[in-house]
């Protein structure tokens, strides 16, 4: 079920009413309702893949209980490996099997041998990369004794399948989300209204910014050989805003929806395009994944401790794995490598934690230095996104060489020029609102500061009608494919 669909608009109020009016007095029943709602939500797309979630849930639930009872370190390690193998096994089979097979065949071809192996004709289960990582975090945390495993299978199933964040995150840690399923939920007006506000802003990001930018980015990327450097640059810019609007929009809707049900999810985006260096960007972009890799991969590898080579190795490992997590294609791996290259100088010069606070904190406008820093970070991010969006490495390289040609200085020309101008204007307005709200968890969080209810509601109405009037053609969320 898509968040930006009529189905969800009907589904959400039904679940909300049942949750607060029918099951509110019984925590177990409330959790059970979440499980049923989540399975309906996921099954709406493809009910057959529900068995995967269920299997993964059962394995991690049993592994958790086993880890708690088991004192023998070898056996505990074995149990952890069962969880890792099952979860990564699913991921490997559905997401990476064909990639490895193709590369295997290519490698043989390179050495003059031709082998014929058949790839799998399978659909990638939506959200598999998200929920497998979430359940893995549970097993690892229980193994490390950071978390006491739960005996409540309904609460655990609800934690794994919680519908707002099931298919595209934020990837929650068991230590943060699971305990919320044990506690009685009390409806709080301010929290619910805040959730509604975040849902609204998420829908704006997705439908107005991302869906409009998607049409233009798709056209330019798909016909990149026909366009001038300036148009290609514009296409890359459109994609840059598409992916941000799409993914952070999804996260906003997920977080907002969770608040309606009394849950708090972690912030997943923190105005990343206002970052002054790439280290800051990665503290603000897809926070739930970055911190997951930091806690479960980077730190166990030694993190930034140790010699220069170890630092370089660990940085590359985390960025390459992060790239590969996004998809089974060399383009994602190069995207990861590129980010590692951007990040390394800061790490080696010990400048990766220079820009911790919000840019131009307490000021309306940034200084010239900050503006230059932001522009540079944004520019190198745009270049990296080209690899992320391109169909192949060759496509990305051709795209880049197309940008850096004499035609970069020509006037951009493409088939949807009017749509392009409208979209650029909308993006401009969006950036202004985001800039003004950059100190908050989402841009319009502090709207209650406007005392007059009528003014506030007029603002909401304006956003709703902007969505209706300027909304682009419905597109699936990009991160569903990951």
């Amino acid at each position, binding site marked *: 079920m898509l968040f930006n669909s*009529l189905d969800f608009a009907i589904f959400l109020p039904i679940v909300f009413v049942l949750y*607060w009016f029918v099951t509110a007095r019984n925590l177990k029943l409330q959790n059970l309702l979440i499980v049923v709602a989540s399975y309906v939500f996921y099954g709406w797309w493809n009910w057959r893949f529900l068995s995967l979630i269920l299997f993964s849930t059962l394995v991690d639930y049993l592994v958790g209980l086993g880890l708690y009872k088991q004192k023998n370190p070898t056996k505990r390690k074995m149990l952890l490996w069962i969880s890792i193998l099952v979860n990564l096994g699913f991921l490997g089979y559905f997401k990476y099997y064909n990639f490895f097979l193709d590369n295997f065949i290519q490698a043989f071809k390179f050495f003059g041998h031709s082998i014929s192996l058949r790839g799998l004709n399978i659909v990638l289960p939506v959200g598999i990369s998200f929920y497998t990582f979430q359940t893995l975090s549970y097993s690892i945390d229980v193994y490390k004794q950071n978390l006491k495993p739960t005996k409540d299978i309904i609460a655990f199933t609800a934690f794994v399948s919680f519908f707002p964040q099931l298919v595209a995150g934020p990837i929650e840690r068991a230590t943060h989300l699971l305990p919320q399923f044990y506690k009685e939920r009390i*409806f709080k*007006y301010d929290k*619910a*209204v805040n959730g*509604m506000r975040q849902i609204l802003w998420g829908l704006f990001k997705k439908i107005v910014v991302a869906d409009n930018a998607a049409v233009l980015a798709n056209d330019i990327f798909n016909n990149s050989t026909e366009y001038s450097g300036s148009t290609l640059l514009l296409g890359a810019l459109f994609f840059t805003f598409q992916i941000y609007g799409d993914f952070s929009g999804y996260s906003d809707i997920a977080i907002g929806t969770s608040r309606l049900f009394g849950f708090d999810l972690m912030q997943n985006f923190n105005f990343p395009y206002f970052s002054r260096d790439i280290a800051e960007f990665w503290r603000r972009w897809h926070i739930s994944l970055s911190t997951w890799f930091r806690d479960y991969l980077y730190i166990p590898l030694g993190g930034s401790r140790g010699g220069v080579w170890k630092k370089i190795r660990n940085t590359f490992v985390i960025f390459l794995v992060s790239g590969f997590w996004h998809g089974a294609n060399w383009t994602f791996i190069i995207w990861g490598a590129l980010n590692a290259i951007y990040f390394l100088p800061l790490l080696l010069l010990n400048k990766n934690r220079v820009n911790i606070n919000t840019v131009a904190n307490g000021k309306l406008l940034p200084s010239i230095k900050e503006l230059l820093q932001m522009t540079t970070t944004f520019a190198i991010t745009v270049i990296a996104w080209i690899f992320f969006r391109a169909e192949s490495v060759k496509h990305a390289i051709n795209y880049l060489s197309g940008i850096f040609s004499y035609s970069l200085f020509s006037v951009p020309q493409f088939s949807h020029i009017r749509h392009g101008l409208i979209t650029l204007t909308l993006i401009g307005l969006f950036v202004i609102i985001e800039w003004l709200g950059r100190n908050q968890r989402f841009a319009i969080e502090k709207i209650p500061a406007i005392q007059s209810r009528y003014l506030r*509601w007029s603002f*909401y*109405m304006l956003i*709703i*009608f902007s969505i*209706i*009037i*300027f909304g682009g053609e419905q597109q699936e969320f990009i991160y569903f494919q990951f």
Partner: protein
Amino acid sequence: MKKFIHNILLFAIIFVSVFLVIIIANYMLVKATEIIIPKHKKVLILGDSNSECAINDSIFNSVVNLSSSSDSYYYSYLKLKKIIDENQIDTLLLSFSPHNIFDNGWLFNESHIYSRFKLYYPLMNYYDFKFLTKNKPIAVFKAVFAVPKQTMTNFFNVLQNKPIRYGGFKLLNRNILSEVQNKLIKGEKLPFFRIPEKLTVSEYEVLYLKKIISLCKNKKIKLILINLPKRKELLNYPRYGVKKFNNFYENYLSDTEFFDFSEIKLPDNYYADFVHLNAKGSAFFSKLLKKQGFKNLKKKFIHSISNQKKQYL
């Protein structure tokens, strides 16, 4: 919770009210805006992309083409009602091909309703509206959300003295015959055209076709059904249903004039694809129609598919 529900409901009521105001404002605006056709233009062309791309009305003095891509007879009827109320038309040329009577998807396809409803709902009466909502209530509900954008466009058009666009001649520069040919052989989906799933005559299309016929009769407008040039590969394709289509005409519509130009042989580079003429094709075909004149055409070619073939082969 009580406060939350109260505020949500209040907000929803305000939202729906504003929305209704927009819908009504657009309705009134469109009602009040005439489709102005110059007085000397007495021949109207309506239909789908077939006629939209085949007849270049700028070549004629007396012809106006208001066809629009994938317009079913339902929308042609709504358009026709408004046009003849506000203009003096004496002849209507209506695109009439097998896909017009077999393909239900054209009328009830969700995306079609989404793109059409916003433009045509002010032209609907109660029965037309009921017809659509009864058959596709959810699609109509979704399509309502496209109205505010259309309202903005209409307001800007009216402010700039531009007409509200219901259709018009479309110049195609493409020629993808070989690509389409390959797809047809492989049984793949054809670009820019949908072959009917089943050769069942659509009762809904026929209902509105008959409404057009009866409206023309009442208003004393000469109605000519016209089947425009198509590629033989498509005409010979069994699922296109030419034979069944001809039988349908003979059995149910034989008292309505019908020109069948579908089998005219034109050079390959006159086609955009199997069903549409491109710029060259439409120029040639329009000149051909002009040369014959609609009155002469009538005398020569009524029901005379075989004569017509001889004439142009």
